Every structure is written in C-alpha cells, then in structure tokens.
C-alpha cells in the first residue's frame, strides 16, 4: 500500500471540526425552536462559530498538500 500519511492526518483532523460544527448547529436549531424571532441574530453568530470551527480543518487541507512527507 502506498500513499501519503498526510491524508490520514487530514481525515483525523476532520473529526474535531465535524463534532464542533454539529454542536454549533444543534444549539442554533434549538435556539430558533425556542424563539423563532431571534433567528436573524442567531444566524450570524452560528455562521461565525461554524467558520471558526471549520478553519482548523481548512488549514489542515492546505497543509496536507503543502507539507512534504
């Protein structure tokens, strides 16, 4: 079997942001369910949290292709 160990790291690094993004949107959905009129305020906060959690994975995507073996 051949391949780059970087891509295993890429897969591993998807776990954390995946869990984090799930938690963020779970909180967003239950917040909107409790108080539908707060949706527009919650939406930008949720997307900000989503973006910050996702940044970790995106940095890894870049590094996985940039770093040598």
């Amino acid at each position: 079997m051949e391949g780059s160990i970087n891509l295993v790291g890429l897969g591993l690094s998807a776990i954390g942001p995946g869990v984090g993004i799930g938690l963020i949107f779970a909180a967003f959905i239950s917040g909107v369910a409790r108080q539908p009129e707060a949706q527009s305020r919650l939406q930008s906060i949720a997307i900000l949290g989503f973006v910050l959690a996702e940044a970790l994975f995106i940095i890894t995507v870049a590094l996985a292709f940039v770093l040598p073996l």
Partner: protein
Amino acid sequence: MSVTAALAAMTAVPAEEGSTFHPPGPSSFELPPIFGDVTKPMLLLTLSAVLVFGFFYLAARQSSLVPSRLQFAGETIYGFVRNTVARDNIGSEHYMKFVPYLFTLFSFILVNNYYGIIPFLQFPSFSRIGFIVPLALLSWLLFVGAGMWKHGPLGYLKHATMPSGVGGPILVLLVPLEFFSNIIIRPFTLTLRLFGNMFAGHLLLILFATGGAALLASGNVLYGAVGVLSFGLGIGVSFLEMLVMFLQAYVFTLLSAMYIGEALAEEH
C-alpha cells in the same frame, strides 16, 4: 509526490497497463497560459470585474420607485450586504463608510466562486491563493486603519491587545497572545479559509468527474456502474459546492465587517 498516488488509491481505479487515468492533484490547478503569460484565472478575474460592474450598472441605471426585475435583484443583494452584514456588525453610526468596500468585496468573491460550477468556465479563480492575498491585505489595512482613525495609533494597539477588566501580571501573557491573534493571524485565516474551501471543493469535483469517466471507459460493467454512482455523487457535491461558494463569499465579507466593527467599538 505521493499525493497523487494516494488519491489514485482512494479512487480505486485499476492500475492496468494502458490506463490513461491521471488522478487530480495540486497540479490540476496549474493551467497552461492562454497567450503570453496570461492564464485562465487571470482572464476570469478580469471578466468578473466587468460582470459585476456591468450588472450593477444596468441594475442602477434606470432606478425607479417601482423597480424593474433587474433593479430588484441588484437592490436585494445591496440591501443584504448593507443591512445584515454592515449595519449589524459595524453599528449604525459609521457603517455607511464601509458599505461600498464590503458590497464590492461580496459581489466580486461571489462571482469568482461561482465560476467553479458555470459550464465551460469551470474554474473558481480563488482556488489560486495569489488572488486572495491582496483581498485579505485590503481588509486587514481597512480594519487596522479604521481602528487607528478612531482610537489613534497607540490607542488602537491598546484597544486591540488589552482586554478590559484584566490587570496585573496576567497582561504579560495576554497582550502578546491578543496581538498575535487579533492583528497577525487574521489576514492569514481570511486567505486560507477562502482558498482551502475553493481548492478542496474543486478538487472533489474534478475527482468525481474524471474518476467517473475513467471507470465508465474501463470496459468492465461493474466498474461502469460505480462510474455512474461517481457521476451522481459529483452532482450532489456540485449542489453542496453552490452552498459553500455563497457561504464563503458571505463569511469573508462578514468577518471583514466584524473586524472593522470590533476596531471601531468603544471601550467598555
């Protein structure tokens, strides 16, 4: 470079003799020049400036109280950026100064991202990192400049690096950290986020399309069935990409507005 080898292993295409399948990799983004030193992304970037200007010029040319369809579309986008991005994040006092920049930024990134799924163009120009760096630098200059305009150069540094209500020796630890995260890291994450999303998304689309084609052309019925599945997944990923493309344009603008708003905020 074994990235390509790993991707080949992932697509599970039989490595038989005479197979012409080349798995996509970072080299798929290095397009040959069309003429001289001009490459496809450069032309697309220029085209996007023309498209954005042309669309909003036409939309705003005959503005009337009862809007035409074009005017309505233009005003919807403008209103979205002005109200939900700029005003909510910068505050109602200073936001109009930054709306032209944020609006231009949003429409420019949006058009360039959607190049990725428009037939025949099919290359998101921001999957080349060099095009994003100037945008991130502009945003960086703008929010640092806005903070210095509001608080004075030293006042802004204090505002950005010293959280209020914290005192004593913990500041020795906190000030360098805040300086690093608020001033140095921000343009890098802005750049990498847009680049990484566009790069990874386009790579995925290439993978499903070329892999599906190679499987269909392999001559084996079972491989062909998997090739059809691969095309189906490619279509699904295209829809996901349409969402991501909009979201990344929104997020780049939103973060720029948030940084400006934070730099302009009063001490509390």
